[in-house]
């Protein structure tokens, strides 16, 4: 028993462990207890119709929304929360900031800092959060911009770039932090259709590199190809989950079947 066969896969450590996240806005309960464990190198696609709570779930992980209940652990480190006036609040904002710097997020609306050049967008957090010196931050930024194919835009401002280019810069900004887990919140939903693929290609490359990623998306083809695990949320609960090809071919839930037939038209 103790000595498993030589062919037994070594246990891959869990990178992000999220347990029973609950969140209400007013009387509307958006998340009713959602859990997820992503091992290192996992690419988890989170699907669901609009209003199913998938973006809120992602935002609860890095505490852009404060969950009403549940636990988030990054590499075993629990984000400490405490009660105040019946609400859950972070016990230590310094810890939250530190965890956030290890969890990069890419937003639907890119959210580049408009008053900074592309290079400054990618160096700012490296310098002021990670404490890197300017020279190594610039080197890192240039490497990341080259990786996503926008190195020639370093002196431009975000407003001068197309949506697809801006989103690739946002991915470079996230990558420059050397994150342990990357969170993508509908990264292609605000893009013109012809610009979607340039962003998806970058994300496919990241998945192939073995990055740990959580991706809220509507891109079913991409999710099937790139994801190692898929979660379908419905009305604040995990309605179906499993390896993408399996559950897309054989959904366990009627809701998911309907969702798939609606989105694969």
């Amino acid at each position, binding site marked *: 028993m103790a000595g498993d066969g030589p062919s037994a896969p070594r246990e891959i450590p869990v990178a992000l462990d999220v347990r029973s996240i609950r969140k209400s806005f007013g009387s509307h309960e958006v998340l009713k207890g959602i859990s997820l464990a992503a091992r290192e190198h996992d690419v988890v696609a989170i699907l669901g119709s609009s209003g199913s709570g998938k973006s809120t779930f992602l935002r609860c992980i890095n505490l852009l929304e404060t969950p009403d209940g549940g636990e988030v652990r990054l590499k075993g480190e629990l984000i400490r929360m405490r009660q105040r006036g019946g609400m859950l609040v972070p016990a230590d904002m310094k810890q939250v900031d530190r965890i956030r710097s290890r*969890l990069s997020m890419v937003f639907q609306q890119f959210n580049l800092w408009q008053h900074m050049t592309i290079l400054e967008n990618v160096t700012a957090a490296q310098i002021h959060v990670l404490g890197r010196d300017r020279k190594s931050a610039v080197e890192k930024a240039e490497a990341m911009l080259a990786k996503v194919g926008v190195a020639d835009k370093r002196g431009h401002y975000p407003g*001068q770039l197309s949506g697809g280019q801006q989103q690739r810069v946002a991915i470079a900004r996230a990558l420059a932090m050397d994150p342990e887990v990357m969170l993508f919140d509908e990264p292609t939903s605000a893009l013109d259709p012809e610009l979607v693929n340039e962003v998806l290609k970058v994300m496919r490359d990241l998945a192939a590199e073995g990055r740990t990623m959580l991706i809220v998306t509507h891109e079913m083809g991409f999710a099937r190809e790139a994801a190692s695990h898929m979660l379908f949320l419905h009305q604040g609960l995990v309605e179906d989950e499993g390896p993408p090809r399996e559950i897309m071919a054989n959904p366990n839930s009627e809701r998911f079947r309907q969702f798939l037939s609606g989105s694969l038209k």
Partner: protein
Amino acid sequence: MDAFLEMVREYGPDFFWGTVLTIQLVVISALLGAAMAIPLALARMSRNLPLYWISSAYSIFFRGTPLLVQFFLIYYGLGQFAFIRTSFLWPFLREAYVCAIITLTLNTAAYSSEVIRGGILSVPRGEIEAARATGMSAFTAYRLVILPRAFSLILPAYSNEIIILLKGTSLASTITLLELMGASQLAASATYQPIQVFALAGIIYYCLTMAITSLFHWLERRYNRYMTLAR
């Protein structure tokens, strides 16, 4: 025309020193006012109730009463309090110049803080979230993203505030200060040529306004390139 040149020859130096004093009042109170306005704006947005109430009361008082009343309250009013008359600050506080600076600073700080508050509130939510999501503390996010972004958003409105401040300095003449308006009044009563005198004062105020406008245009070109370049 001859009379006009005569008047300029006679009172030119008074106008010159009056203009210098006006510029001093504007520059000093604008800088002090801006320095006060940022913490005031933050206090106005604070969830700390005492801070919020004090800053709101301040803002309502200075925006709700005429500037002339504030000049009189500070210049004539402060001397009524024995503890102020006996304090070591009295030699300063009884000076009209100091009272004018204090009044203009407090007044412009109240208006500027509203402009700054509006600027901070119009920084796109997503850019602030992006800053926090990288792990920036609230302070760092303010320093790198929120305040610089608000600064460029408020430049046009802020130039208005400085122009109004310039015109407000003319009221300092009522507390014996011989700035541009005070100098003009003296010249007008000495020469019995109010039209020429006040026309000249008007022209100088106009030129100062143009200077403020071009300063802000320069600032906008310098700091808002990202907006004009955007497609």
